Structure formats: C-alpha cells, structure tokens
C-alpha cells in the first residue's frame, strides 16, 4: 500500500463535525438515561445527601463498617449487631457512661449463690406502648437455649438451671430455671455461684423478646425494621439493606430524658478507611476512624484525635498437638525470648492507641480495688538473644534434632497481617536461625485450619465477652473449644475451676494472678499487643462513649453543641 488514503483536511473537518454532533447527542442521551435510571432505582432506595451534624433537626449522620446480619438478640454474635441492639433494646441492667452497672428494665436486683431475682420497673414499655414484663425475658431466654434456635451464644446461659441439658436436647424447654413471678418479678435459679452474673445481664443474649410479636413475624424476627419490637432509647424507622439504618428517639422509652438527639442516621455502610475519612472531610459523617496513611493529615489539620483500647488481646499461639516441635517448652521459651512486643507496636504497627502485650489479661480489667494488672503486675519477658539460643539448644537436644524442621505460621489477610508475619519470620530467622513458612488464609480458612491443628504458630486473639478476667483466664483450659492449640496443663485447669466457682473476690484475683504467672512460664502463647483504634469526632458532637465490655460505640447520650 504505497498510496496514502485520502486523509485530506476537508474530509477531516467534516468528519470532525459529525463526531462533535454524535458527542453532543450522546451527552444529552446520557443525561436522559441517568434521570431515567435514577427514577427506576428510586425503588431500591438509597442515602439522601445530608450533613454529618444537623443541629436544626437534631440529626447525627454516621457510618457503619458493615450492615448487621440480623437483629434477633438470641442469635446475634457480631459487634455491629451488638452496637445496634444496644441502641434499640434494653436488658435488665445496662452500662452507665463510666461503664458502671446501672438499672435498665430492672429497678433493683439481688444475686445469691443459688439464685438471682430482678424487680422490673412498671414504666418500661415496648415501642407499641405495651409494658415490658418478666414473661418477655422468660420467652427470650428459653428461645436462646432452644436447640432449634441454634444460638451460638447459648453457652453464656449455661449457669442457669437446666440450660445446658435443654440445649443438648435432654430436657424440655419449659424446665429452664427462669420464672416470672407476676409481671414484674423475674427469678433465676443458678447451678453454680456466678460472681459476675450481674455483668452478664448487659449482654445482648439476655434482652427481652415479646412472644406474640415474635410469633407474628413468622420466622423473620429481626430481619427488617418492622420485624423488630423496641424497648431501648431509639427505634429503627428505616432499614434499607446495604445502604441505610436510621434510628429515631423512642417516645416510649422510660428514661427518654437522657436521649438528647432526635435521629441517629447510619447512612453509609463502608469499612474502607479512606472513603470514611473523605466523608468526614466533606462534612457528611460525624465520626471516622484513622489509619496509618491519614493519621498524618489529621495531625497536620489539628483535628481532635481520640484513641480507644478495644479491650482485646492479640497473641501468637503454639500448637501442642503430638509431633509438633512447639510442644517442647524450651522451644516455646526461645521464641518468647526473641519476640519483642514493643518493637511490634512502635516499629511495625506504628499507630497510637495500641499497647505492647505483656499478659493475656489486658490492662483494663478490674482487680480487688484497682486495676488487675497494677495489683498483679505481669513479669515482663525482656528480649534476650543469648538466653534464647541456649533454650533453643536445649530444645534441639530434647527433641533429638540437629536442625529444627520449618515451622508453619498461620495468619489471615487482615490489614496488619502481612507486616506482622514478615516481622516474625525475619526475627525468628535472624535470632534463632528458624525457617518460618507463612501460611496466609482468608479468615474462615484460618479458623478451619486452627481447629484442625494444621499449624505450628498462629496469630490469633480474643475479644472479651464480659468484663471479668475469667473471659480470658479459661481460654487455655483443656476443655475450652477455643483452645485450638490444645494446650493441656492440669494445674491451670484446677485454677480455672477455682476462679469459676469462688465468690470471694480476693481468692479469685489471687487465682488469676497465678494463672497469669503460669501462662508466662509455660507459655501456650506469646502476647503481642492490645489493639486500639484512633478516630476523629466532629467537635460539635459530645458524649460519645467507647467501652470495652457491652456495646461500642455508645451514642445514646450524645448531644449537639453549637450550630
């Protein structure tokens, strides 16, 4: 092809005009199409453009990391459902602003070694105006232990008479040791003394459910805004799945004077930290979390930064199943001696709010009078490479090995997963000459592999269920199914049994102190850090409560200051 096609200017100009015409027509077409689609998708619903804080209407707009799976209190297990349920329902006892136990539906209560009695207030009402009675609690608790409900949290009720037998299908549901003595008195029979029973009452699983309403929902209880009855400070008035959950002040709530805003609008469901901070910058939401990247910007802009300790502990767990090298105490000691939690927190995570791990018991737990960790300080294991190598040599001798086989470190694809596992891989290689194979799995697969024992080391953690050291202390008891490394120490089991049944505070705390010592000297795990979050709150929003046990964050007491 030697001759160039007629590509002359005249042709180009006329073709260009044609293109322009097509372009103009397409733009008009697109605008019309968008209007049409917008009209059509109005059926699917969506978020309206509103301000993060609107003082005129008393509205606070917020984001949720994800949508609650469902809001049936007997079946809910995740933190988001717990937060939502905390705003729209209320149990016998609730947490006050300082975390102290405050009367909820129950005016007062009495707990002995064998029973608990709650006197319910007469003015507690459901959102349809009918009173909340003791029968509503009996119905909900029976449903929670019913095997047909298949509640994952049924175990939390096992201190109640016959609860365990009912859940295993060996006793009729009506035999549960919970009785309504009239409308306003609830009596609970206990199988063993439970020193923290009042603290348990705060938990979602113990919320009331009214039988007639539940039956009317035909198996869809808690699936939609109109499939739930409310007795908390707020009610859900609009729930568009995947898009919006809007709460309005509950006019029937007995303590409605403490609720100062009219609307809490969770208008965005997103866990993308950058998207959330962009929404905050644009004034669309009132609270946003910060990550490593946007922390600096927040500092430069002098935003008021808050930090909060989530109450959990993350640790590296060893596998104690037969034939695993990590059964050897000296090897575990060697690893414990080279892992430096300070280095992890300050050089790897590099985000304020996180604390280096020193013990399985986090710093916030209460002891006798003050904090547990102040009364029973954990021995700090200082990094010591020389001693670590000595322990390693002992381990090799006892195991009869020249060199140790490669160890598998199991982790999941969480945000900090990679940095952390690479740090451990390099540290253990440099200091001890160990070969670490990283096995990175998605969350569910990590759990499956943990349960199957397919690991040597695994990064795991624990979020407390109730504010008592026992929620951590029984983790490594041989009978606990969360003890996925199968750590077995008869002395520890004995101590856990003491802590479970003793009602004497001093004895219990001494026992926890002893458990803490054992967990450091014969480690089933090495504590890494206590995770924290850093976040910004619009300065006009006051009274956001963050707490470790119970639901978090708590917006029930917030107020808007200024305009």
């Amino acid at each position, binding site marked *: 092809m030697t001759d160039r096609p007629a590509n002359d200017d005249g*042709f180009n100009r006329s073709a260009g005009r044609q293109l322009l015409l097509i372009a103009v027509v397409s733009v008009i077409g697109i605008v019309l199409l968008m209007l049409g689609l917008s009209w059509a998708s109005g059926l699917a619903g969506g978020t309206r453009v509103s301000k993060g804080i609107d003082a005129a209407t008393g509205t606070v707009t917020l984001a949720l990391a994800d949508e609650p799976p469902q809001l049936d209190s007997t079946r809910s297990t995740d933190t988001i459902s717990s937060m939502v349920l905390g705003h729209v329902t209320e149990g016998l006892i609730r947490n006050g602003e300082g975390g102290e136990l405050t009367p909820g539906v129950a005016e007062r209560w009495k707990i002995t070694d064998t029973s608990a009695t709650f006197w319910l207030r007469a003015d507690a009402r459901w959102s349809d105006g009918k009173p909340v009675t003791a029968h509503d609690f009996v119905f909900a608790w029976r449903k929670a232990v019913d095997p047909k409900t298949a509640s994952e949290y049924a175990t939390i009720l096992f201190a109640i008479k016959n609860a365990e037998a009912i859940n295993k299908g060996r006793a009729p549901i009506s035999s549960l040791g919970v009785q309504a003595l009239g409308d306003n008195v609830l009596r609970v029979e206990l199988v063993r003394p439970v020193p923290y029973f009042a603290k348990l009452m705060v938990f979602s699983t113990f919320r009331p459910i009214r039988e007639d309403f539940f039956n009317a929902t035909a198996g869809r209880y808690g699936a939609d805004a109109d499939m739930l009855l409310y007795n908390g400070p707020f009610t859900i008035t609009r729930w568009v799945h995947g898009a919006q959950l809007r709460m309005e002040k509950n006019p029937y709530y007995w303590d409605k004077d403490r609720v100062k805003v009219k609307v809490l609008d969770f208008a965005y469901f997103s866990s993308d930290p*950058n998207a959330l901070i962009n929404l905050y910058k644009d004034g669309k939401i009132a609270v946003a979390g910060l990550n490593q990247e946007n922390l600096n910007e927040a500092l430069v802009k002098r935003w008021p930064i808050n930090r909060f300790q989530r109450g959990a502990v993350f640790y590296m767990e060893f596998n104690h199943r037969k034939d695993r090298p990590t059964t050897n105490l000296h090897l575990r000691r060697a690893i414990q001696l080279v892992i430096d939690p300070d280095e992890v927190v300050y050089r790897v995570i590099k985000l304020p709010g996180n604390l280096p791990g020193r013990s399985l018991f986090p710093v916030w737990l209460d002891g006798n009078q003050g904090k547990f960790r102040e009364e029973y300080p954990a021995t700090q294991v200082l990094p010591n490479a020389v001693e670590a190598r000595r322990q390693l040599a002992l381990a090799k001798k006892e195991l009869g090995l020249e060199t140790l086989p490669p160890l598998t470190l199991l982790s999941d694809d969480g945000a900090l997963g990679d940095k952390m596992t690479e740090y451990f891989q390099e540290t253990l290689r440099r200091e001890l000459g160990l070969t670490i194979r990283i096995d990175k799995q998605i969350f569910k697969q990590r759990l499956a592999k943990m349960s199957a024992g397919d690991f040597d080391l695994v990064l795991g953690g624990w979020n407390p269920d109730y504010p008592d050291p026992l929620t951590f202390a029984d983790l490594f008891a041989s009978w606990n*199914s969360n003890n996925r490394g199968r750590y077995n120490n008869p002395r520890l089991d004995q101590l856990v049994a003491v802590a479970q049944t003793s009602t004497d505070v001093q004895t219990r705390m001494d026992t926890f102190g002893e458990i803490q010592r054992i967990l450091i000297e014969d480690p089933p795990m090495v504590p890494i850090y206590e995770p924290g979050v850093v976040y910004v709150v619009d300065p006009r929003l006051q009274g956001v409560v963050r707490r470790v046990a119970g639901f978090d964050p708590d917006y029930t007491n917030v107020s808007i200051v200024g305009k």
Partner: protein
Amino acid sequence: MWRYTIKRLIQGVVTVWFIATATFLAMHAVPGDPMSGDRAVTPEIRKNLEAKYGLDKPLAQQYVIYLGNLARGDFGISFTQQNREVNDIIREHFPVSATLGILAIVFASLGGILWGALTALYRNKLPDILIMFFVILGISVPSFVFAALGQLALVKLNDFLGFSLLPVAGWGTVSHMLVPSLVLGLGTMAYLTRLMRSSMLEIINSDYLRTAKAKGLPATRIFTRHQLRNAILPVVTVLGPSIAGITTGSFVVESVFAIPGLGRYFVQAVQQLDYTVIMGTTVFFGSFLVLMVILVDLLYGFIDPRVRLE
C-alpha cells in the same frame, strides 16, 4: 434465526448447570464452613446449627436438594444475613449494580467510539498522541486507584466550592451515580478506544472506501455509513463480555463509594464462605454473562448484514 436462538439458549442452560456444579464442588472442597466463627462453639451447638441448615446430610444428597431448589429458582437463605433470602438479596441489590453498570458501559462505549474515531482521524498528530497516552494509563491503572482518586477529587472540589456539588459517597440520586460510573467505565473505555482506533485505520485503507470516495459520495456519508458502521463491529463483539464484566466487577467501586450493589455481597460471600449466597450470586452472574454473549451474537446479525445466523 429462531432455530439458532433456541440452540444457543439450550447451550446456555448447559453452561449454567456446569457453573453451578463446579461452584458447588469447589465451595465444599475449601476448608472451613459458614458456621465457623471467631468463637468456637461446643459440638452440641454445632450439631444444632448443621441440622438447621441441612449440612448434616451427605454431600451428594445436598447436591440433589440444591439442584432441585435451583430448578425452582430458590437459592435458600443466607448464612451471614440469617433472615434474608438470597433471592431478596439479588432482587434488592442487582438493580443498583445494573444501574451503575449500564451507565458505565454507556460511558465506555460512547467514549471509546468517539475517542477511537478521533485518534484515527488525527493519526500520529497531537490529539492522537495525547489520547493514546491516556488510553495506556486507563488500561494499566487498576480501578481502585481511579476510585480513590475520583473520590479525593470530589472532596477537593466540594472544599474549593464551599458546598457539596457532588456527594463523596452513597447512593440514591443522579448526582451519586456520575463519578462512580465514570470510574467503573474508564478501563473499558480505554480498551475500546484502542480497539476502535485500529479498526478505523484498517478501514481507512480499504478498497471500498476508496471506491466510495472515487464515486464522489459526500464526506459525511462516507464517514458515518462506511467508516463508523464497519469499525464498530469489533467493539460490539467485546461489548457482551464487557457488560457482564463491568456489572459483576463493580466490587471495588461499590466499596469505595459505599454503594449498596450486589458486587459487595458477591465478594463478601466468598470470604465468609456463605454457601447459599456464593451459589446464588455465581449462578445469577453466570446466567447473566451467558445471556449477554447470546444477545451480542444476535445483535451482530442486525449490524452486519454479511453475518447470517444459522
């Protein structure tokens, strides 16, 4: 024509059955299951859960039950959204993804055709070089970068104007749709531009175009009837898979812009091993893809009279 259509539809059903079976087997081969959670449950509670969801039956029996339900269009109830039917999830969230996808594909195809035609007209001149530079950028930069940049640009724009011209995230009005769909369509637009350019250039050198010019047809008629119409054919070919790809691949854009589309459920279900939602969304998207390909093949016959559908 009709025989062809029916033949393709039957092939499509077989393909969808294959997708469903392969997904079913792969899903159950993966370690773990939807019931394993952060907190270990006692064997009794686990048994209760398995009985509730019918997972205590042998796999073959589960497969038969599953196929039966599938034939009736019932995908079951989600494991993670415990009170929602998979059908509800698809019905509520697919329209959002589809809206986003349709707009994105319109942006991509119109943009691709216009830019592609422009580069061909100004071959090796400045407009061509400039556009092709952006095309390379559009093809090589992943969509989450564009999504983040697009959102940041919106924040800056609103900050500069002093009021919210376009919302930063969320869904519901026309203003919510513009930037996400542009971002979603960008990669495809770049790809189509390149495709359009090369097919235009091929035609510019063809004999029938020279003939058309020689017999003195007006330039506008040559351009639209002969050049554009013939050059669009390859674009139409890739449009089918692109529509399905864009509609199903909107997860990143949906999560950045907090859009309640189906893409989010599609990806989360896999992470959570939510069996019923994995099966539901996979079969749904699979059927959608198959249907789109068939539609494009039929459309071919209308655009190009040389193609006979037999």
